[in-house]
């Protein structure tokens, strides 16, 4: 504690007019996160995939769809890092570009959830009159198994990248909203919220300054797991032919095409499978680490 306080103290004494440096409590949390082995491992695993996604145009030849019939079914190694598929397309290119699509879809679903899940959850939790209506609609959506609902929505809208994002958004937003609602219900009874009411604060100020910042932790944890689910669901949908339209490479449709040649060219299905596994594993480890550090209920047990 003395270490934490020493610096800003001296700074103020020396120059009382200058805006002094503040040690936000988030710094301590960050420090604990980077000491958490599971979190760091997850971060590295997911970091590899994220790097592949971001650097796709520079680490592959630009076109993942270039055919080369002479080179079909080349095994991994040699000229072809990950081998080639039944049309002689470079699997490295396809998997890397697939990673870009997966990460992009994952991020979009997470962003949709962060916005609408928070909005619905905060409204339901804070304005109790809205709670009944919003949560019954929520329950109705949650009554469907996630992947079934996603298949239903994409089947209805037609296969495309945008529709996959929309479908996964519809599937997962109710789940995020529930979690946000639960924290908001707890937080609105906190005495510091009561104090703000007593000081005359309006609803908007209370939500923005007192409730939402303190509801962030469980939501960040939820969103990191959601990222993994979204990537996995997207692969499932495109494996079933409901994702991005081929020849656009996605891990799901690479695996779907590779299924026919599983015996002779197992790498076509194995490589995107392993990449998918690394992504989901990394994100889950990251989420577990975040939960350990951010979720106060578990911190007490330590």
């Amino acid at each position, binding site marked *: *504690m003395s270490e*934490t*306080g020493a610096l*800003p*103290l001296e700074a*103020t*004494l020396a120059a009382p*007019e200058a805006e*002094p440096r*503040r*040690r*936000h*409590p988030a710094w301590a949390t960050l420090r604990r996160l980077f000491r958490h082995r599971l979190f760091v491992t997850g971060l590295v695993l997911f970091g590899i995939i994220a790097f592949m996604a971001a650097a796709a145009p520079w680490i592959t030849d630009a076109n993942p769809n270039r055919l080369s019939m002479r080179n079909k079914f080349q095994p991994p190694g040699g000229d072809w890092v990950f081998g080639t598929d039944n049309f002689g397309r470079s699997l490295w290119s396809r998997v890397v570009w697939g990673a870009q699509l997966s990460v992009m879809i994952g991020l979009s679903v997470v962003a949709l959830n962060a916005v609408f899940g928070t909005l619905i959850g905060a409204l339901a939790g804070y304005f109790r009159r809205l709670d*009944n209506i919003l949560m*019954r609609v929520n329950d109705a959506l949650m009554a469907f198994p996630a992947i079934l609902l996603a298949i239903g929505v994409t089947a209805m809208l037609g296969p495309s990248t945008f529709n996959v994002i929309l479908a996964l958004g519809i599937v997962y937003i109710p789940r995020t909203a529930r979690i946000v609602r639960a924290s908001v219900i707890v937080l609105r009874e*906190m*005495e*510091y919220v*009561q*104090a*703000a*009411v*007593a*000081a*005359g*604060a309006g609803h908007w*100020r209370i939500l923005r*300054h*007192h409730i939402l*910042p*303190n509801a962030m932790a469980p939501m960040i944890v939820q969103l990191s797991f959601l990222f993994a689910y979204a990537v996995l669901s997207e692969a499932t949908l495109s494996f079933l032919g409901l994702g991005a339209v081929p020849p656009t490479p996605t891990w799901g449709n690479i695996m779907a095409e590779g299924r026919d040649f599983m015996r002779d060219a197992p790498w076509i299905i194995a490589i995107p499978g392993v990449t998918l596994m690394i992504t989901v594993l990394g994100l889950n480890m990251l989420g577990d680490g975040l939960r350990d550090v951010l979720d106060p209920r578990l911190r007490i047990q330590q």
Partner: protein
Amino acid sequence: MTRPLVEAAALSKHFTLGGGGLFRRPGETLRAVDGVDLRIMEGETLGLVGESGCGKSTLGRLLIRLIEASDGQVLFDGADITGLPPAKLRSLRRAMQIIFQDPYGALNPRMAVEDIVMEPMVIHGAKPDAAARQRVAAMLELVGLPRQAALRFPHEFSGGQRQRIGIARALVLRPRFIVCDEAVSALDVSVQAQIVNLLQDLQREMGLTYLFIAHDLSVVRHISDRVAVMYLGRVVEIAPKAAIYDAPMHPYTRALIAAVPAPHPAGRAARRAARLRVEGEMPSALNLPPGCRFHTRCPHAMAVCRSVSPPLREYAPGHSTACHLHDPQHRPAATEEFAA
């Protein structure tokens, strides 16, 4: 102590439990506060004591309109504030504030102390500029914190220091009336004394009026001018401090005071002789007993107590109680000792 600053008239708060849902039946009614009349004089400290669940916190929050009354009125400075529209209520909030029990839950962990103390000022139109920061620093010094505390976060402080921050936040708008809701109950005894003394100093300096809610009778005795005793949503006795501790009228008050450990052995013996036992638990506020609420546990209960609810009536100057034992009409021969 000339005129009442805060008044409650037949003030009630009833909570409906389990009701309101789409497919749920209307629930039971919990009468947390049930027809309370109370006057708090300008500049005084009124202690409010009672068991947990008797409605004392609810009453405190009703008085500053942190929760809405189901029935009855609250008067502040002579004006009815019960039905005040939000815009007018906001400006009124400057005048009344609350200090909470839990020094850990009362401060937003994500705000620096300066922002916490400044927030009420900002809500009431102050710009968060150098002048405002200066005022926060002055406020912190007033409650006994170094001005450098402004830049730290709540987790860097002890319980007593956090309570001081909470007090600074409550006082920064220069209110007239403060509800201290168990403000020292969660603190160590030595720290309790410091905070109580601080509250008293501030009262003298700023001319504050306190409603001091507590369950610790010795703290209440130290700080209060008058004391009100609550039982199951009603005020059962209210009197100047000396009267309530030396000559309690209501059997419940007598039992409460007898239960305070006496510091001196001689006092203990005397206390033991006069001890009044109250057995059992407080009945549920969901299912109130008919007549006097205390009759289920009262050692002096009479037939009338089971059917007629005693009104709060003044039996000695400034000393009111709600008990049939003191009513000449009902007073039985056997409890002559009660008619002090």
